[in-house]
């Protein structure tokens, strides 16, 4: 089946409006006859649930945490982009579109990205109406700041807690719909599988995490907002429960998985400090607006940072990229930090860190001004490291942060399974091979507030539905499969814990499939992953029972999927014989060590189709056509 992205015709600026008109509508009285399942309550899932319910659909929403307010969107710090041009500094929808296409290293769809830039503005309007306490100037107008990889100030923010505030906004809208009886909320549920009937997504099987019961839920459409797969690396900035299971299960049911090798390694994270470490903490890259990144020029210089004179410091980003300086996109900043550490110039006990120094900013703006901008981040840093960043530079190192890859979706955000929509980080759509700062919040809310409410209606209006209840054979079969998988996990009774195996997977991926890759390493990784997967199914131990609150069993199911998914990621990295954005294959680089794309052969989306257990998946290619932005070598010099 050829991949059809269903991109509307006509000039790019009019595509979405035209599509909105062409989408079929459902009469308000009929909307209540349709059940829609939303899985996940982050920015995408929360906003979609609230908006679909507001339109009159009957919505059932599921989340893995104890409350929909806790989804990991809450941890996003820096801000949300919009093309408002309030600062009058030359921004526009076109510029946001252009920056996002270029930032993604020309591996995203023009039409989707243009729509995202258009919708960025009503998102801010809506969020303000909801009462999001965005930062303001003295006159009461909204404040903006510049943010990673942009030369204009288009980022709206609520201190260093923008994600929290936007998520709580979506959560409050969702709460209102729950109170009105328009959304039925199911917290502490984990989606174990998708139910497909006649080629349509018609429901899900979930596990009630409190009592272990499997539950069946039927609907006319399923909207997956289950986030990214960064935790395949074990250590990432993701929350502990973030996982690929829901997405990967639908992949096995026929949804294609696109560009899994596009993972984002974020440059400014608190460095790893021990084998017991459970997660990595991001320091918002807004810090790069005022912090200067440096290492000692001499690898043998082990003096404390403040004793190293200016002339003996290497401000490598400012040197190499004079026009963007410390604000280069994430992939570029991360690779450069790694390069410095590989040369032995890393700092701190492990040598795997670079300095992010605020001394000049404090001298220029005063400590009070810096504290107002970044106070909570500085405090967070001090809590973790026990060091005071007002007095000493922060030590930072890249960490896995975001995954641009995800389930393939068309312009309507529908996957290759009819009626299965995928939004937010869980889909692949808008960020190409590298996401720019403050764009994830924008995309999650665009998908949930302003895209899915229309496109899901278009689908429902045009589809024929058989009568399907949770008693349907497909539900029984899916539930049985899920149950036998759980039983199998509990019966292995081996000698290694789930975390122990997950940590081994982490080392394989971090060593061989991270921000700098080679074909040999990727081949090695593939073998090691296969061996580890076999080891898992023979030697893992999962205590407790399936009929209980059992966090070990939850983790085991997720790691089992990560072990399969990791191979898909490596396979995709091997198939993409070029470098672009977050995917850097050392064989393809410019003389200045920048990613070198091969537009002739790889200007496409790689969408993988599951072909059966232990079989090589098929790759489908969706060509990317650039009619509005000229394909060029990214340069931030």
């Amino acid at each position: 089946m050829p991949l059809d992205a269903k991109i509307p015709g006509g000039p790019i600026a009019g595509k979405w409006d035209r599509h909105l008109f062409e989408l079929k509508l459902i009469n308000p009285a009929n909307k209540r006859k349709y059940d829609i399942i939303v899985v996940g309550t982050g920015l995408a899932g929360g906003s979609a649930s609230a908006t679909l319910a507001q339109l009159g659909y009957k919505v059932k929403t599921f989340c893995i945490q104890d409350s929909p307010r806790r989804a990991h969107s809450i941890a996003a710090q820096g801000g949300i982009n919009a093309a408002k041009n309030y600062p009058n500094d030359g921004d526009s929808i076109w510029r946001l579109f252009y920056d996002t296409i270029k930032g993604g290293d020309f591996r995203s769809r023009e039409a989707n990205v243009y729509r995202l830039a258009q919708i960025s503005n009503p998102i801010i309007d809506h969020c303000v109406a909801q009462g999001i306490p965005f930062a303001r100037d003295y006159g009461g107008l909204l404040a903006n700041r510049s943010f990673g990889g942009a030369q204009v100030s288009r980022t709206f923010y609520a201190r260093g807690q923008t994600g929290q505030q936007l998520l709580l906004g979506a959560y409050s809208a969702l709460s209102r719909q729950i109170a009105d009886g328009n959304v039925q909320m199911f917290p502490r549920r984990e989606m174990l599988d998708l139910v497909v009937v006649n080629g349509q997504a018609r429901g899900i099987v979930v596990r009630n995490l409190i009592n272990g019961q499997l539950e069946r839920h039927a609907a006319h459409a399923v909207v997956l907002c289950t986030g990214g797969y960064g935790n395949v690396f074990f250590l990432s900035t993701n929350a502990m429960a973030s996982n690929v299971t829901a997405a990967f299960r639908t992949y096995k049911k026929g949804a294609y998985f696109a560009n899994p090798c596009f993972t984002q390694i974020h440059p400014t994270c608190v460095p790893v400090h021990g084998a017991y470490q459970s997660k990595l903490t991001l320091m918002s890259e807004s810090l790069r607006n005022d912090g200067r990144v440096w290492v000692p020029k001499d690898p043998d210089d082990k003096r404390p940072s403040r004793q190293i004179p200016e002339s003996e410091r290497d401000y490598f980003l400012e040197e190499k990229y004079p026009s963007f300086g410390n604000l280069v996109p994430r992939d570029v900043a991360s690779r450069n930090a790694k390069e410095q550490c590989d040369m032995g110039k890393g700092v701190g006990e492990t040598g795997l860190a670079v300095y992010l120094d605020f001394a000049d900013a404090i001298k220029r703006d005063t400590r009070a001004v810096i504290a107002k901008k970044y106070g909570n981040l500085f405090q967070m840093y001090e809590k973790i490291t026990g060091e005071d960043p007002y007095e000493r530079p922060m030590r930072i190192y890249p960490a896995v942060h975001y995954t641009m890859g995800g389930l393939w979706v068309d312009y309507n955000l529908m996957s290759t399974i009819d009626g299965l929509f995928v939004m937010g980080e869980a889909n692949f759509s808008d960020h190409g091979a590298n996401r720019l700062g403050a764009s994830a919040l924008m995309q999650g809310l665009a998908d949930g507030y302003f895209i899915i409410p229309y496109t899901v209606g278009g689908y429902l209006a045009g589809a024929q539905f058989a009568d399907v209840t949770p008693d349907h054979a497909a539900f029984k079969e899916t539930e049985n499969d899920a149950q036998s998988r759980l039983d199998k996990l509990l019966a292995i009774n081996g000698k290694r814990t789930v975390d122990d195996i997950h940590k081994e997977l982490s080392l394989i991926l971090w060593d061989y499939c991270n921000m700098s890759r080679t074909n040999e390493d990727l081949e090695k990784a593939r073998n090691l992953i296969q061996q580890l997967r076999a080891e898992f199914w023979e030697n893992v131990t999962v205590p407790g029972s399936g009929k209980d609150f059992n966090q070990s069993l939850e983790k085991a199911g997720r790691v089992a999927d990560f072990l399969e998914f990791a191979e898909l990621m490596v396979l995709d990295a091997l198939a993409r014989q070029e470098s672009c954005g977050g995917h850097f294959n050392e064989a393809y680089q410019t003389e200045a060590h920048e990613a070198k794309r091969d537009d002739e052969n790889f200007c496409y989306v790689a969408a993988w189709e599951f072909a059966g257990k232990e079989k090589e998946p098929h790759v489908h290619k969706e060509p990317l056509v650039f009619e509005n932005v000229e394909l060029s070598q990214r340069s931030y010099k």
Partner: protein
Amino acid sequence: MTKTINLTLKIWRQSGPDSKGRLETYRATDISTDMSFLEMLDVINEKLTLEGTDPIAFDHDCREGICGMCGAVVNGRAHGPEKGTTLCQLHMRHFSDGDTVVIEPWRAKAFAIIKDLVVDRSALDIIIQAGGFISANTGGAQDANAILVPQAAAEKAMDAAACIGCGACVAACPNAAAMLFTGAKISHLALLPQGRPEAAKRAIKMLKTMDKLGFGNCTNERECEAECPKEISIVNIARMNREFFKASFFSDEK
């Protein structure tokens, strides 16, 4: 500098809401002082798992102090001894070699225990559902800069909106009141012009719901403020009370 310490842990174990709980003793050896408190529990759980014992159930997710999922009473203090710190951000450098550490779940009538340190905080969601929102439908908003919000008001609203809904205020309060939680949300919205149209209704409905769910009343103990990991001020309780009185006397809301 990193060093290691040994601790004696007394941890609340309870297999379900209706079963009897008890404190059990565990030894935590060679704990790096750079570990977070939850990483220390991870280490204990890995050991228990390999010994064939049921690991300790505890809620956690982001582990960076923002999701509000984690929390336990450590030596009698919600989220432990450090000010303005969630349990996941509490590091072992604040403990000394040889310490005995008692770890218990949040205790409140409105928070039933699910297992060990895991409690049911859905009552907090129900309070928000009663009115912790602005009824703004998607799609109808005017330009964002058409609403002017004085910077000071926006900052105060943000101070209140920073609440992470962890429930520490309830656990710390001798009356198991949810006044700080509820006051924070009412304040956040009442301080903004967008929140004013529904302010009266919101205050009355949220407070009534809070009472109905079995939370206690405020007797100005200030324990909530002392233990709040986001250091939310009890000024927000005073503001909530003002909003409630205003609404009761001067509005048609009941």
